[in-house]
């Protein structure tokens, strides 16, 4: 192969893994944001409940996608065996702990276990632990990809930060979507709740934009990473990136949050619903684009270049 041969995009992981990353990220972002809101302001305890109702199904469905991608899904429990060195194993433990903790919290809302909820220290401890493990779930998918040295597009320390911020934004947007159906869910929340969430979304979307720019710039420092970045910015993934992620997934939600201040919970506000739904779409596309654009660096040896097939 000539020295100008292009790397192949990896095909080992595809949309199922991207969907898992999105659902687990959004679900855990939801729970993290809900836990923090509840711990910082008891008036917002309804958000915690809403976050659990949304976050747990998302994480569970995400895990189902992950299992779907496995060649031997019936051996799924084997993934818990090596947390000392494998990020997949660490992630399995984090997810398992998170689900056990959230189910325990659910139990406290159900009779007769709700009698235990009179012990505030235990409830607070549970909520703190949920926040910690939800944060771990948001974060671990970054190192999971970043640990792949042969794929320079993933092998960057920016990825965990980008995934974490994107997960919190997606989690808040998920809560937003449910809040606009507040009347249906009968969650008692103070009237300024939507404004508070909008405030954080308005701060975090620009942070995500900066992180994406830094991520793509950082990834472009190696020839193979540059190939991946070019594929995202100008190549086969450009439409998904510019239209789907940047315009629909970031700019429209950012504009939507600027219209919300002053609105109250309980109203169905089309701009919020639209902005949040598109934000979630953008969050999914971000992960799909990053997974799809990973390319293994060619082997350079004896003056030649060996381009590895995408499924190796």
């Amino acid at each position, binding site marked *: 192969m000539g020295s100008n041969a292009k790397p192949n995009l990896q095909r080992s992981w595809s949309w199922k893994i991207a969907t898992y990353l999105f659902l687990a990220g959004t679900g855990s972002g939801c729970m993290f944001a809900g836990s923090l809101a509840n711990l910082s302001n008891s008036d917002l305890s309804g958000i915690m409940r809403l976050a659990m109702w949304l976050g747990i199904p998302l994480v569970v469905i995400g895990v189902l996608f992950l299992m779907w991608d496995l060649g031997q899904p019936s051996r799924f429990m084997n*993934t818990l065996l090596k947390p000392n060195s494998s990020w997949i194993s660490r992630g399995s433990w984090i997810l398992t702990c998170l689900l056990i903790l959230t189910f325990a919290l659910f139990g406290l809302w159900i009779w007769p276990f709700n009698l235990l909820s009179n012990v505030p220290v235990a409830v607070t401890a549970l909520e703190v632990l949920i926040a910690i493990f939800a944060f771990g779930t948001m974060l671990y998918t970054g190192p999971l990809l970043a640990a792949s040295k042969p794929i320079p597009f993933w092998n960057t320390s920016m990825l965990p930060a980008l995934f974490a911020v994107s997960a919190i934004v997606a989690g808040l947007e998920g809560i937003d979507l449910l809040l606009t159906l507040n009347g249906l869910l009968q969650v008692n929340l103070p009237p300024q709740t939507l404004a508070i969430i909008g405030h954080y979304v308005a701060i975090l979307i620009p942070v995500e934009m900066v992180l994406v720019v830094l991520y793509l710039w950082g990834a472009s420092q190696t020839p193979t990473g540059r190939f991946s970045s070019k594929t995202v910015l100008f190549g086969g993934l450009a439409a998904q990136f510019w239209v789907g992620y940047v315009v629909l997934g970031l700019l429209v939600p950012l504009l939507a949050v600027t219209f919300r201040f002053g609105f109250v919970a309980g109203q169905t506000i089309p701009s919020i619903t639209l902005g949040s739904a598109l934000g979630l779409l953008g969050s999914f596309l971000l992960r799909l684009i990053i997974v799809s654009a990973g390319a293994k660096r060619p082997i350079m040896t004896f003056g030649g270049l060996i381009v590895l097939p995408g499924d190796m």
Partner: protein
Amino acid sequence: MVRLGMVIDLKKCVNCDSCTIACRAENATPQGVFWSRVFRFEVGKYPYAKLVSLPMACMHCREAPCVDACPTGATYKRNDGIVTIDHEKCVGCKYCVIVCPYGSRFFISSINQYYANTPLTPYERLARTLNGYKHHEEGVVEKCAFCVERIDKGLEPACVNSCVAYARVFGDLDNPESEVSRLITAKHAVQISPELGTDPSVYYIPP
């Protein structure tokens, strides 16, 4: 400690692919799966260009990224340095395929007969019943294991045994008196992509 490894002399390699075929015959790998392959690439410019052939399989790295990445312990390193896979434990997550810089791992999504719309060949029939073909399993990752079954019987890997040009030498890299160690020193054999820190157990004598 024993650390089994291989030296491949690219000056001797005649690009015949007998190692590819011997591996296939020994392990009866499914259609489209080649644990051992020969890559070919051009170096230099006309009129001095030449074709270089590079036989590659699993590098059995001392610092194998696949061993660390495997979440189940299915990929592990034996005491003699051979990196192998316990298919009973593999969940088919493909993380080892992702982290292997040498493209030496294969996810078996399906096992097909060699020739579509025709009956199994006599070799396939035999392999599926006698030669351990049944050990190939869909939904797991496979790779070269230096023919551990042969090594445990005191034999050399099939690719070494079949090399018509005697380009492959197999032995203990940790023994300074072994032929592989002497070749590495005398012929200045090199590893592929040593900068990755994987410390492969396969060395190449440059062409």
